[in-house]
């Protein structure tokens, strides 16, 4: 690790002031991703601004019957919270499928949103990476890309977003609150993460001087019909090759509303309103699920080692939807 200085802040306003004044500084909360990247010399901040003691640690009733998660609530606290388990079991299941208990005890929900890709070339300083060094080139494109994205990629980057929690938040339609020099604003979840385009180093629509303060879960939690399936190389403690969060509202055998979010296949948690619309108002049959899955992967593109993900994603979507209908949360 390089040397750096350290500042601890007590208020959101002072955190915003510090980060706005120092572009070489980074905010740190749980530290599970940032410290690792600093040890790898991928991140080399000259200063850390410790926000872990800000008063953003509450889970409390949100607007319109929803639930608000403070940005500094740990992943464990969210996953094991009674209200989250009862009303948003999809979120609990997704969080508990990621990382290890130790990491979940440290990692905050705000940090989870901003974690960086685990693309092996992003971590490997000896190989070019457009995310690390804009314009350098992408080593994954023609490299070992088994874990890489099949949707939303560009000619400059095919890295995936690694979070499980974010896949559930995308399906639930969460809203992210941020604070900056100009005050507060809300970002709908689908608009938080960016596709790589020609600037893969810019991963979110968050401004450099803004700090995430909380996440609002809407009232609807899809308790009765949800499923999170994570397909990975080992049964626990591995990143997703493909993950699917499915959330349905049923009226008898008819799908009233469908949400499908994918993880492990795109640079951001992936939703597709067109594919979801194919499910709405139709019966919950495998044929209809297949049709939606085909639609969701219609633009998928493999890069060699990861071609298998296209079929795997389709099959996992069908299975997640079937399980959601049956009220089986996960496999």
């Amino acid at each position, binding site marked *: *690790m*390089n*040397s*750096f*200085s*350290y500042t*601890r802040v007590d208020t959101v306003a002072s955190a915003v002031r510090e980060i706005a004044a120092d572009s070489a500084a980074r905010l*740190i909360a749980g*530290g*599970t991703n940032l*410290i*690792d990247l600093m*040890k790898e010399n991928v991140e080399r901040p000259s*200063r*850390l601004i*410790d926000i*872990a003691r800000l008063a953003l640690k509450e889970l409390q009733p949100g607007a319109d019957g929803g639930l608000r998660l403070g940005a500094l609530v740990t992943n*464990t606290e969210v996953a*094991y919270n009674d209200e989250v388990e009862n009303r948003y079991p999809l979120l609990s299941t997704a969080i508990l499928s990621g*990382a*290890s*208990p*130790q*990491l979940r*005890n*440290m990692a905050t929900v705000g940090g989870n949103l901003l974690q960086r890709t685990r693309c092996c070339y992003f971590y490997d300083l000896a190989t070019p990476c457009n995310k690390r060094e804009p314009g350098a080139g992408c080593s994954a494109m023609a490299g070992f890309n088994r874990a890489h994205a099949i949707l939303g990629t560009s000619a400059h980057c095919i890295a995936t977003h690694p979070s499980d929690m974010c896949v559930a938040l995308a399906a639930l339609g969460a809203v992210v609150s941020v604070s900056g020099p100009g005050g507060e604003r809300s970002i709908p979840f689908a608009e938080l993460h960016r596709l790589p385009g020609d600037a893969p180093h810019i991963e979110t629509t968050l401004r450099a001087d803004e700090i995430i303060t909380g996440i609002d879960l809407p009232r609807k939690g899809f308790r009765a019909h949800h499923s999170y399936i994570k397909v990975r190389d080992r*049964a*626990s*403690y591995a990143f997703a090759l493909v993950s699917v969060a499915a959330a349905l509202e049923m009226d008898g055998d008819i799908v009233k509303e469908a949400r499908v979010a994918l993880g492990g296949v795109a640079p951001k948690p992936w939703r597709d309103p067109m594919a979801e619309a194919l499910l709405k108002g139709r019966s919950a049959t495998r044929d209809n699920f297949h049709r939606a899955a085909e639609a969701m992967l219609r633009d998928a593109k493999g890069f060699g080692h990861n071609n298998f993900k296209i079929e795997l994603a389709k099959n996992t979507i069908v299975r997640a939807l079937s399980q959601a209908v049956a009220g089986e949360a996960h496999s």
Partner: protein
Amino acid sequence: MNDSPNKDNAEKVTGALPARIEISLKINGVMKRMEVEPWTTLLDLLRDRLDLTGTKKGCDHGQCGACTVLVNGKRINSCLTLAVMQDGAEVTTIEGLAEGEVLHPMQEAFIEHDAFQCGYCTPGQICSAVGLIAEGRAETLDDVRELMSGNICRCGAFPNIVAAIRHVTASNEGGGKR
């Protein structure tokens, strides 16, 4: 590198380094005050400054669990947190689990079930298992396996590790549950 820096240069370099920061930690029940560089991880502080070498450095990237300690009662990877970030915290390491000559029940169970071979991962396994019991979520053997997945044993002593932990959770029935 060949020339030893003259005194002025040495002072300049030292002056450019960010200041050490004074922190206090309660480690295994004892209050400690010390100055640390911002980049010192909790793991390095424990091992290199405080000679608490029971906590092990395995991967140093939060993947193996050998560095697991309890901070304010919760298990964490001490390699992925900075000592300054834990200012004011209570830290329990493997050295702090026994009470005098009386081993912690988890330590007893690991011996009873022969839950290690080389022993390098064992302090992390035991601290992690103590954290797991406090969380109260491991009701089945599969739960234990899943909730211990952050601790890797290169010798493959997993069956006996799971048996040792199950032994303690079973004898805690009703006591360690949520």
